[in-house]
């Protein structure tokens, strides 16, 4: 049973990827996630300078999913330099997520990050929980393409992958615009929303930022639809993300068109060992369904 895939020239032993925003604060934690079975990992979004993020509560789980507004806390790329310099030690392809409040900031961060030669730079143009750095870029074909082009200018051989949002009017068109601007892959989707939950006794929104992005099982159908639409519009590979907790969910996203599959909230539902569990379940499914190579599943739902 072959689970290996190639994504943006990076060889992965299986298609599971630690999604950005989860656990990726240091090299030691990423090594742990690789030991737990992930085929690739992502450093938590890094910005141009120190950013504190929002007040707690920042991450909660309601009945159907996870809701968060952490607010992109980051020490800034200069302070992360020490960790990024050790990117090779992670033991699997490591992507680095970056954000900025302007095209220039994206370029500045990307230039510094690219020097460390990560497996890819993920552009967070889709965070629903911040004002300036948020999904404004990912909602617009023009702005998303502009960010991609600016980053491609300074990223050298490091592949560039914008992470898109389902809040765009037509996510497939945004993906297409990014491809035309030189993107090597796209990731989809970021959290959905923002949403809000109110504690009715306190009569107050629960999250410190009040609004937060929704992830987990609640958004899986949105992710599947977005990946499906993007697959029909572009030729570059897709990192499919959204609500994967089981092997079947990963296979579903791959059949929609994803070459690799991000897992984040799945850690909440099944523990840090979720990567291994998902891979085992994929193998069982493949065996039962006469599939020897996971690569054959990519886009299968389109035929």
């Amino acid at each position, binding site marked *: 049973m072959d689970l290996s895939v190639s994504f943006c020239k990076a060889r992965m032993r299986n298609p599971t990827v630690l999604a950005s925003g989860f656990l990726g*604060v240091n090299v*030691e934690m990423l*090594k742990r996630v690789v030991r737990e079975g992930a085929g690739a990992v992502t450093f938590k979004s890094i910005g141009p300078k120190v950013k504190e993020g929002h007040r*707690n509560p920042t*991450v909660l*789980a309601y009945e159907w999913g996870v809701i968060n507004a952490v607010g992109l*806390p980051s020490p800034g790329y200069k*302070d992360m330099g020490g960790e990024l310099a050790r990117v090779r030690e992670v033991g699997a392809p490591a992507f680095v997520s970056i954000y900025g409040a302007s095209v220039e900031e994206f370029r500045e961060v990307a230039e510094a990050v690219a020097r460390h030669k990560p497996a890819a730079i993920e552009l967070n143009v889709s965070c629903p929980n911040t004002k300036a750095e948020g999904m404004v870029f990912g909602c617009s074909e023009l702005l998303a393409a502009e960010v991609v082009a600016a980053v491609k200018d300074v990223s050298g051989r490091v592949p560039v992958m914008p992470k898109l949002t389902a809040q765009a009017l037509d996510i497939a068109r945004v993906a297409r615009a990014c491809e035309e601007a030189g993107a090597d892959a796209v990731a989809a989707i970021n959290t959905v929303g923002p949403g809000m939950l109110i504690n009715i006794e306190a009569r107050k929104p629960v999250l410190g930022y009040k609004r937060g992005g929704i992830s987990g099982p609640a958004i899986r159908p949105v992710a599947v639809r977005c990946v499906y639409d993007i697959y029909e519009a572009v030729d570059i590979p897709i990192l499919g993300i959204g609500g994967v907790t089981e092997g079947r969910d990963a296979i579903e996203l791959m059949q929609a068109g994803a070459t690799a599959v991000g897992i984040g909230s799945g850690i909440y539902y099944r*523990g840090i060992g979720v990567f291994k569990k998902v891979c085992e379940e994929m193998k069982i499914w493949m065996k039962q369904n006469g599939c020897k190579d996971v690569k054959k599943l990519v886009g299968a739902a389109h035929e």
Partner: protein
Amino acid sequence: MSDMPVSNKVRKIVEENREVRTIFLEENVPGAIPGQFVMVWLPGMDEKPYALSYMDGEAAITVQRRGKFTDRIFKLRKGDYIGVRGPYGNGFDVDICKRPCIIAGGIGIAPLAPLAEKLAKKKPIIIMGASTRDKLIFVDRMRKVCKVEPTTDDGSCGRKCFASDILEGVIRKCKADVVYGCGPEPMLKRVFEICRKRRIECQLSLERYMHCGFGVCGSCAIDGYRVCVDGPVFSSEQLSKMTEFGRFARLKYGNKVGLYEYYSWRE
């Protein structure tokens, strides 16, 4: 599954001293064991982790006044709502010891007091350290279940020294096989080293800035460990693998700094 702050009313407030209060909750936190913690939400303000200082039908947290958040906790009155979610973390392993020794630095006594009660049959000995006599809390509570060895920085109660200064002698005298500890990390680092030297097991409860409490965000990372899920209680073996224990911690925005810079930021 869901992990939302659940509204819980303040049932009773006990003033332990001028700076420390125990807040008893109307609703219990079912299934909690000593060493586990809850996330406490003050609506519209912030949310922070607190060890449970009482359990088994009467959940409580014990809070030291420090900054804006604890100022607000000190304004709580009986009947006020707060949000509570948990219990979180692993808790202390009570099955591994025959002769337990417990060491508490300052407010670190909070998770250790219910532990001492749970271990009562094994006749634990507890070293309780604080800066002065009036800052030692739960002394009478501990005297009911174990032998108490107090230490104070100024000598106003018990020996005039740090708690960890008398640990080695106490281990030798009572032939302790496991040391349970909670308190300032420089103290815990010393406890760890003493236990390593004497080749006995330790179970130490650590603290880091925390967001989710359920192991997904990474804000409380110590190397590859998550304090909220893999801890907060760590074994000798785990502690020996950590490069950051006793040396580094991360601020709210993920910046890795020296422990003293971290502590001054927390103040």
